[in-house]
């Protein structure tokens, strides 16, 4: 799967309270959550983000709370993919489980700049800067997680397992 989008850049240790502040967690509606996505990091983001956007961040993206509302808000805001130097582990699991593509690649995270156009080949983990030259290789998903992604998320994967049990 090929993705193309414009880079929105964030720093290190972006926590889930910045991604979706707890004051908005009294709903599970993705559209409502998306309206406040990244509000405490960049109040303009939710109002200006363009569909297909590629979020680029530093180390430990998504640290803090286990709230799945964080990747849900990002996905519903129209972000197609997150590239970060590293991810906090619960956020990483949550993103895979809801089918939000994420790639770990410190080189791309450091090099890509706000507003640049980038293409991402999810299967191969290849990230290309289309504005300037530059090609980066992200760490591949473990095969077990590729299987979850192939089946369209964890719930479909669980359904398969339950069929086998029955």
């Amino acid at each position, binding site marked *: 799967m090929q993705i193309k989008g414009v880079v929105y850049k964030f720093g290190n240790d972006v*926590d889930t*309270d910045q991604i979706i502040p*707890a004051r908005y*967690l*009294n709903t599970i509606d993705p559209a409502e959550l998306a309206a406040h996505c990244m*509000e405490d990091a960049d109040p303009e983001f939710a109002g200006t983000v363009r569909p297909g956007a590629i979020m680029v961040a530093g180390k*430990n993206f998504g640290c803090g709370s286990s709230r799945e509302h964080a990747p849900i808000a990002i996905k519903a805001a129209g972000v197609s993919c997150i590239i970060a130097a590293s991810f906090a582990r619960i956020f990483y699991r949550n993103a895979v489980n809801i089918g939000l593509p994420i790639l770990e690649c410190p080189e791309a995270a450091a090099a890509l700049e706000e507003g640049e156009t980038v293409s991402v080949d999810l299967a191969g983990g290849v990230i290309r800067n289309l504005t300037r030259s530059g090609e980066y290789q992200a760490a591949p998903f473990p095969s077990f997680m590729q299987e979850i992604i192939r089946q369209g998320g964890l*719930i479909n994967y669980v359904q398969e397992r*339950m069929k086998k049990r029955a």
Partner: protein
Amino acid sequence: MSMTITEKILAKHAGREEVSPGELINCSLDLALGNDITAPVAIQEFSRLGQDHVFDPERVALVPDHFTPNKDIKSAEQSHYVREFARRYKIVNYFEVGRMGIEHCLLPEQGLVLPGDLIIGADSHTCTYGALGAFSTGVGSTDLAAGMALGECWFKVPESMKFVYHGKLRPWVGGKDLILHTIGDIGVDGARYRAMEFIGEAIENLSMDGRLTMCNMAIEAGAKNGIVPPDERTKEYVEKRAKRPYTFYSSDADASYVETREYDASQIRPQVAFPHLPENSRPVSEAEGIELDQVVIGSCTNGRMEDLRTTARIMKGRKVHRRLRVIIIPGTQEIYLQALREGILEAFVEAGAAVSTPTCGPCLGGHMGILARGERALATTNRNFVGRMGHPESEVYLSGPAVAAASALAGCIVSPEEVLGDAD
């Protein structure tokens, strides 16, 4: 093969003789937990499975604690959704306002999490239960949905880091100070994806409440789990609470660790973490004089009996500084009642503090003490991220209960020694 305590518990629950770091394994669950914020998403995902039962109605715990007692109509709707699910699926361990507590104070207290268990919770501070010698970790709502259906969860076996605390603690130093100091040392991603194993003389002498505080904040260093090898103190704590068998595991002497950190605990002073990350911890002496608008004492980190007793020792017979508000939140109904019987709540009220029913409330900026623009709080909670307790331009400092209580009297951050000397 030699293994750490974390590896042994994972191996047991995967039905394996041994496991190694990096392996992907499927494990059986002893308990799956959700709250009023995370359970609604999990229930929605669970319903997509079309299953008419959870894997075991006694092994699912639902604790509405974050926005409860319901702070607004939307929160009430979410709690209602969780309550209806608990009724329909005959969830035994559903806890209603008035009989509940903050989930990570409540579950150990009620004997629902035990040594050797494997627990997942859709709350990042689920790592708290490692203090009992269990493997316990936070997950998201979809993982909880799958866990409620299958009674299983997949894991990557984490590498283990060993943290050794030599020596005896100074007066007014507790588990919170040790863990803040440690996070200050390794950073908020210093243990990312790893197990943090806490050992040494200072840990052996640390109360169960102090150990729960330490494991609670393992997530603030990015860890998958925190764990303390169970001992006599653990046994004393669990034997009166457990309603099912439990197992003590311990690390082999030659188990392998990716890293070992050693600390002279006798040199660690009461800590304060500056905004906006828990890794910004410094000795309280470097924070003295910082003026405060609010002090919060409570949360899954420091809302237990020992924390309230420490607070009372400092506050009893004294008055909260006129400049600020103090909000004290006992972690569970049982703790609330015990504090009532010991006269501790009376001392708080006489000192001029507000005492709340158990709730996560202000810790995550939910309700019960939200900060205005420019306001500054000192809290015994676990996170001081931007906007964590209210307005994005407010500030949260973190400390243990002793520093928080002393500062509540002074109106600014001070060392407890300034109020009471070293009479710990």
